[in-house]
């Protein structure tokens, strides 16, 4: 008697896989409405953390460009005269963490202030009215990229003749801290949504299993291995994950395209040249492949639970 062996060999393996592959696609197409609804839920669940990540990425890019524009204003004491101010300025240019020093005379400062305040011809009257220019010499300092600004401020304040150092970095630091918090939040949300993807897919597969209970039992009865029974469902989970991830990626990119017009208008009004970054290749790959893997995980959990009942 020639009983059925576990037909070994690469070709038998390939045939069994082809069968699983095709029957998983069949499962998706048999219930187009249910499959589509699941895919939409998955896409929405995956879009949320991805969109948040992209938003955060873009805010980081803007804040980085702001930081580079930042200068420190070193106010010298009122008694300091031009020679002392210029000497200090040229000495500071030798410091490693300072890129440029721009001395601003009290006259220039006053002109800047009145100009900025748009006082027009009032400025002449103001100059005339003031007994003497109340402004000190100011050194505008551009720090080197990546300098520890706080430490630099400390050293500058200890220089003779320096009255005070003005930094307007506090709000940037706060923004950075806030972005770091939000960055953590994105990681947390991404994890939660990944878990929800696994469970959404698990639930969909569970319903698929209910519908095909008879088929599964018959297959087990005629000698299908758990791996063979499991495989089409794992493929189905993978398809759900991959398609859901791809849909989410499309939604995010379409959203960026929709926003790019208004954003360029906005950045134009600020005289800035800023455009939205699309999600990078790593994030896109992580999104699609990751949701595919969580799809497999979800279906694996639920199929295994069911298989234990059939094979006591």
């Amino acid at each position: 008697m020639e009983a059925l062996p576990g037909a070994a060999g690469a070709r038998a393996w390939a045939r069994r896989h082809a069968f699983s592959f095709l029957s998983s696609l069949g499962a998706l197409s048999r219930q187009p409405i249910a499959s589509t609804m699941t895919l939409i839920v998955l896409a929405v669940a995956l879009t949320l953390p991805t969109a948040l990540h992209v938003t955060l990425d873009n805010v980081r890019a803007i804040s980085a460009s702001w930081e580079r524009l930042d200068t420190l204003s070193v106010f010298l004491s009122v008694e300091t005269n031009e020679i002392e101010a210029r000497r200090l300025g040229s000495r500071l240019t030798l410091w490693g963490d300072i890129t440029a020093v721009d001395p601003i005379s009290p006259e220039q400062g006053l002109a800047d202030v009145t100009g900025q305040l748009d006082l027009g011809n009032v400025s002449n009257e103001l100059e005339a009215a003031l007994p003497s220019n109340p402004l000190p010499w100011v050194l505008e300092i551009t720090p080197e990229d990546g300098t520890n600004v706080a430490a630099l401020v400390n050293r500058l304040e200890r220089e003779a003749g320096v009255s005070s150092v003005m930094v307007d970095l506090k709000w940037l630091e706060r923004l950075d801290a806030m972005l770091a918090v939000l960055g953590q939040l994105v990681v947390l949300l991404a994890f939660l949504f990944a878990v929800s993807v696994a469970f959404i897919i698990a639930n969909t597969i569970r319903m698929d299993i209910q519908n095909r209970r008879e088929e599964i039992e018959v297959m087990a009865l005629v000698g299908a291995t758990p791996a063979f029974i499991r495989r089409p469902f794992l493929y189905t989970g993978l398809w759900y994950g991959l398609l859901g991830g791809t849909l989410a990626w499309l939604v995010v990119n379409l959203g960026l395209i929709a926003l790019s017009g208004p954003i360029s208008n906005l950045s134009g009004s600020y005289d800035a040249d800023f455009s939205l970054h699309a999600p990078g290749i790593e994030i896109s790959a992580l999104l699609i492949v990751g949701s595919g893997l969580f799809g497999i995980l979800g279906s694996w959990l639920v199929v295994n639970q069911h298989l234990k009942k059939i094979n006591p």
Partner: protein
Amino acid sequence: MIRFERVAKRYPGGIQALSDVNFELADGELAFLTGHSGAGKSTLLRLIALLERPSRGQVLFDGRNVGKLARRHIPYLRRRIGVIFQDHRLLSDKKVFDNVALPLLIAGVSYSEIKRRVRAALDKVGLIDKENMYPPMLSGGQQQRVGIARAIIGKPPLLLADEPTGNLDPDMSADLMDYFVQLNEVGVTVLIASHDLDLIRRLGKRVLVLKDGTMVDDLPPRQTLTGDTSG
């Protein structure tokens, strides 16, 4: 081929389906398993195909203790056993051809080989012209024969049938039993659970009688079945 040693099966909830069952079925033998419904016939067959594990005792298949078989070996055991059910258990959304082909698909047999063997099996059960139909389009007897074709396609050394004639008229039942006898004559070991006493008596094969979960009688072949086995 099959040996039961002091086998008991108790289902969760305290239902004692079998208690202390002992018997042996030799290679190439054909036997009927009879007894009223609820006597434990189905449970006994389920223990052989490892659809259930025994609570106590040993079920030996080719000398191996089936009850202790690791879960991953179960599929390979089942490939050596063809099972036929009263309710056929065909997949109604798959064609007759695909239903019969299922065991071969699972084993990874090539498509040309599958085609050849499915045709041969359908020819043997007289359904060669029905391969593209769906099971619900067939009569009960035809569906049962599709089930038989599926059970024998893998050429298993053991065939188990659970009330195969349960839904058939007497003529069809007789044909079906004759068919089992033919299979047995080419070397397949066959165990048939049935309460069709007239048919069993006519065939004069070995009869095992279950009553309330215990084996109360084991009648050798060519002996006329007498007395009341249904109570």
